[in-house]
């Protein structure tokens, strides 16, 4: 977010002709370069109206909108829109054009030569994970999930610095939606885009937003913060109610295991004498023991089985779930409640890194 914001809304108001109340009233919002901002709120909060004023699908009644420091009202709407990617929930692919033609829409409008368009389309097909053989098909021959990938590719075609997305994954089934969300999350890491993303799904807003703007009826911003902050410190009762239950779980989902303090736990190398092993178990107050072989995780054994047999001759049982450092604290919690030993074991590249119990996870969000 260095320097000027990419998108700046200043005192923007929209009153629709058929209504006396403002759909959006005196809204000011800065969106940083390369940032992904999710707009979320109940229906009637003006989130979609706000989004559509940025590319002037809806013309503001008053106020100013700047994109990259330039007044969005100063150039013809169709030229403005060619420099802004746009993805809508109903996808809106052009039924009479092939997938390749659909993706190449804006480059054609910008007058690129055909060879350059072909190259760009081929590149985008890979970026969004489509099959190259689909290129000559028509939209009606694709599934909903595939169509929305085309929709995203079409929006990215002319490499616009700004991407507007209006509930882009709202019309696909939950399984496909999850996959599209995580793909889009990865995609954002590779592309340097400023994204404004409207959604009514709190989890989606938390997952995808660098910051989330929670809007109340009439386009009133209740809170505009990173998801962690929103979850930790809701600015108002409205925000708290809107986030709903399980706020703790939602926060855990945002925190990687790497942020928590891992404990060594009752884990010993198979070379230690059995007496030492029993001492470690006693020290941790558990009836099981984790076995390592030069840092590599072997598994665990029941404490009752540890007599004077060398540890190396025991047959350890594997941990059902192990997690790596990138996994979320929420998945660690899941591992704790489903594992026999009530711990989450963290392993990276086969090397034991430590473990987390319930207290350690709870500390992750309370500190």
């Amino acid at each position, binding site marked *: 977010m260095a320097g000027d914001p990419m998108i700046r809304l200043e005192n923007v108001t929209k009153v629709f002709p058929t209504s006396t109340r403002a759909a959006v009233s005196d809204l000011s919002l800065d969106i940083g370069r390369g940032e992904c901002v999710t707009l979320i709120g109940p229906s009637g909060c003006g989130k979609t109206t706000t989004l559509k004023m940025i590319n002037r699908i809806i013309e503001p009644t008053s106020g100013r909108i700047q994109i990259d420091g330039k007044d969005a009202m100063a150039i013809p709407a*169709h030229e403005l829109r060619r420099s802004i990617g746009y993805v*809508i929930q*109903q996808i809106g692919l*052009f039924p009479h*054009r092939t997938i390749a033609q659909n993706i190449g829409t804006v480059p054609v409008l910008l007058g690129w030569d055909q060879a350059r368009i072909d190259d760009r389309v081929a590149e985008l097909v890979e970026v969004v994970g489509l099959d190259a053989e689909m290129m000559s098909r028509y939209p*009606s021959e694709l599934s909903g999930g595939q169509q929305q990938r085309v929709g995203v590719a079409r929006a990215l075609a002319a490499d616009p610095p700004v991407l507007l997305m209006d509930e882009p994954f709202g019309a696909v089934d939950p399984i496909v939606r999850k996959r599209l969300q995580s793909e889009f999350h990865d995609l954002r890491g590779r592309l340097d885009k400023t994204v404004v993303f409207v959604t009514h799904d709190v989890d989606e807003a938390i997952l995808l937003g660098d910051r989330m703007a929670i809007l109340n009826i009439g386009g009133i911003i209740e809170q505009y913060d990173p998801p962690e902050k929103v979850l930790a410190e809701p600015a108002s009762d409205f925000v708290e109610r809107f986030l709903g239950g399980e706020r703790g779980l939602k926060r855990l989902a945002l925190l990687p295991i790497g942020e928590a303090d891992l404990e060594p736990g009752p884990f010993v190398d198979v070379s230690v004498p059995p007496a030492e092993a029993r001492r470690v178990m006693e020290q941790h107050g558990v009836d099981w023991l984790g076995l390592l072989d030069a840092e590599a995780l072997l598994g665990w054994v029941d404490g009752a089985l540890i007599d004077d047999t060398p540890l190396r001759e025991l047959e350890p049982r594997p941990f059902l779930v192990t997690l790596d450092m990138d996994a979320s604290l929420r998945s660690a919690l899941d591992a704790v409640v489903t594992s026999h030993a009530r711990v989450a074991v963290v392993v990276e590249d086969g090397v034991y890194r430590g473990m987390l119990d319930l207290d350690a996870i709870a500390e992750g969000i309370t500190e």
Partner: protein
Amino acid sequence: MSVLGQAAPLIDWDWIARNIDQIADRSWQHLSLTAVSVGIGLVISVGLAIVSLRWRWFYTPITWVTGLLYTIPSLALFALLVPIVGLNATNAVIALTSYTLLIIIRNLVAGIDGVPEAVLEAADGMGYTRRARFWKMEVPLALPVIIAGLRIATVTTVGLVTVTAVLGLGGYGYFILRGLNTFFWTQILVGVVLSVALATILDIGFLFLQRLLSPWARRAV
């Protein structure tokens, strides 16, 4: 009945061979009356449809008037036009054209209206100008419905052209009328078979045109 009673063959192939030039002339007359009427009908309809699409309130009176025209029996309309334009081809073309308007205008407007809202919004969002959006999105997407309208109008007109025989025209209708007057079955059959054949050929022709111009629409409209 006496003529039929003489056990004459149902089809007199010699008559057909002797009158082949006249059959060709009447074929041309039938086809040209159809083409001119539907063509003029299309031009007028496009004009009225554009006006209707721009000023919505205009559409209701247009469908009202064209609907009224459509209800007038053809023979009555020819007769009504006689004092104004006389008993000639102009009379026929005016009447035939007026019958095409309702169908063509309705399909033009329905076709454009049927373009999905999401497609229009996406086109706007990509940066199409209003004019480009109309020609590159709305018209191509409306084409199957528009052609379906032309198809119905054309087949209807082929049928109505036969009635213009009362004006001394009629295309194949001339043979039917003459044949009925003289109880000459060959003439009647020639008129009936050829006019049905022409309607069928044009119907299939439009179907192919529709498929050709809208390969993306898997289902025929």
